[in-house]
């Protein structure tokens, strides 16, 4: 009986202590790791860079002789551009990843913020490689793209008489996400996307939908298309194909910046990692994922 009581007391104490500590000890003990989080588009690239960086240098002292002799620890989490900004604001992460323009209302909450544009991602208008539209009409005007995504054109036949009379399956990312905002700015310009559009929970799922469904059309990040070109059919918009040159030259319109943001001036360790990202090493990693580094622009 006594043992049980003791056990219960310990458990309940642990529970209450757990509850208390989250309220009272808000600032966690300062650890030396760098926490990075945000855009699901950018996170894999940054994670690759963090791996290379850690493997190359091992300890901070080897990065820069003035830094302490500590193991390099960098965490990268993915969760959306909104999360990137929010957690930079509330300090959950040291560096936020954002794959859209930063809103003025968000800048207001980060008075001392620093942000660095690493590169650009383009959203390709992608269809299934079996879709005959690739032969019939490989180039759409921005107006046609808008009509498809707003639901004005409901079947492929309405786009071109020689296409099959099958419904157009519009696939999009969630309506608040970074990709949707970039797409809205470049193409929709305030016109709402059709309510019948299927919302996919990640860019990977959106790419998968376009790969699997013959009638699907979606805006797929150029990074995904570059990784597996045979599985996507990419349409030009206003006669401009989303090639690296066109994106870098700013000719291809449906593009969005890839940004990293810090709440205040980054500390020495963060600064060193950010400099690594902004060096040739970082640019190569961004290029390897199919994005266009800011250097070329």
């Amino acid at each position, binding site marked *: 009986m006594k043992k049980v009581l003791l056990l219960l007391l310990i458990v309940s104490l642990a529970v209450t202590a757990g509850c208390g500590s989250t309220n009272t000890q808000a600032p966690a003990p300062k650890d030396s790791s760098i926490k990075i989080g945000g855009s699901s588009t950018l996170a894999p690239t940054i994670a690759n860079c963090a791996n290379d960086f850690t493997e190359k240098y091992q300890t901070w002292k080897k990065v820069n002789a003035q830094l302490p002799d500590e193991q390099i620890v960098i965490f990268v989490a993915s969760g959306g551009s909104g999360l990137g900004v929010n957690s930079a604001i509330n300090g959950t992460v040291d560096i936020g990843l954002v794959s859209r323009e930063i809103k003025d209302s968000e800048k207001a909450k980060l008075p001392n913020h620093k942000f660095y544009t690493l590169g650009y991602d383009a959203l390709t208008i992608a269809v299934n490689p079996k879709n005959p539209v690739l032969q019939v009409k490989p180039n759409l005007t921005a107006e046609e793209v808008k009509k498809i995504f707003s639901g004005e054109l409901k079947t492929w036949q309405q786009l071109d008489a020689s296409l099959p009379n099958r419904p157009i399956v519009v696939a999009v990312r*969630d309506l608040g996400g970074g990709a949707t905002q970039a797409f809205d700015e470049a193409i929709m310009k305030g016109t709402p996307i059709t309510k019948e559009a299927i919302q996919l929970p990640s860019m990977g799922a959106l790419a998968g939908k376009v790969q699997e469904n013959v009638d699907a059309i979606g805006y797929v990040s150029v990074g995904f298309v570059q990784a597996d070109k045979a599985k996507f059919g990419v349409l030009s918009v206003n006669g401009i194909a989303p090639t690296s040159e066109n994106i870098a030259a700013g000719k291809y319109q449906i593009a969005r910046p890839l940004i990293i943001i810090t709440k205040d001036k980054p500390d020495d360790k963060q600064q060193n990692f950010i400099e690594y990202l902004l060096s040739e090493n970082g640019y190569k990693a961004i290029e390897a994922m199919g994005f266009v580094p800011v250097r070329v622009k």
Partner: protein
Amino acid sequence: MTPVRGDKTDKRLAAVGMLVSCLAAGFLISIYGFIGYGSSAAWHQFGLEILRSDAWAPLGQQPRLGILTMIASTLWCAVGALLLASPLGVCSAIFLSEVAPPWVGQLMRPVILLLTGIPSVVYGFLGAAVLVTFFEVKLGMASGESLFCGSIVLAVMILPYIISGSYHALQSIPAGYREAASALGVSEPYAVTRVLLPLVYKNIAAAIAIAFGRATGETMAVLMLAGNTLTMPDSWFSKGETLSALIALELGSSEAGSLHHQGLFAAGLVLLALVTAINIGVNGWLSPRREEDGR
């Protein structure tokens, strides 16, 4: 152990127990408080239009926060899952409890309970890979996602709850009822449908209601299968976005404290209220019955 000491220990134990249960209850209340506080401005600005309107455009020039389509999709998906799972689940429970030889029950029940341990994202993945492709390729639907797809996978997920709830209800019936039925020479189906089921139908209904609560709140599988369109569902085969899917999809990208964020909190409050209402309703319905019965 002397009786006095035992008495003291019991009292302390009771106090600790009380403390822990109060903490648990306080936790639920604080969740309500937190979600209510997070969505208060949205309720203040839009009021009941949130529940009545089917226009969800939190980022439009004129923001709208109607979640009627999501409520409809949530209920449609969950009720559909019950339609599929209830007959199957209750019949399985009857089979395991009354018909099958004991070793079959001993073998099957752990296996069925194991189904509850499979993560919902795995169910969703299976559904997306198998069901959605099946509807697209074999049935020629333009896109395979639908509330029906969601319902099928939800049905598999809630089946264990219905089976084990109904099974335990049937097992709780004293053997005397079965013996009496045998002695009167009625057939087994007659004994099950006319003697045993009337005794425990409320407990079986409770098991189904708990499964309904589970189905309403399920997120990942439905997120991957229901299509997440903003349209009002008009058939089982139309697409829709459930409340939980809406929150999972958009919370990550919403700006903290914005109207969008608050709208999602409002959706969370509605979902929480829905599940709580189901649970309270079932409890209220069940408790007087026990006293009448004296069982």
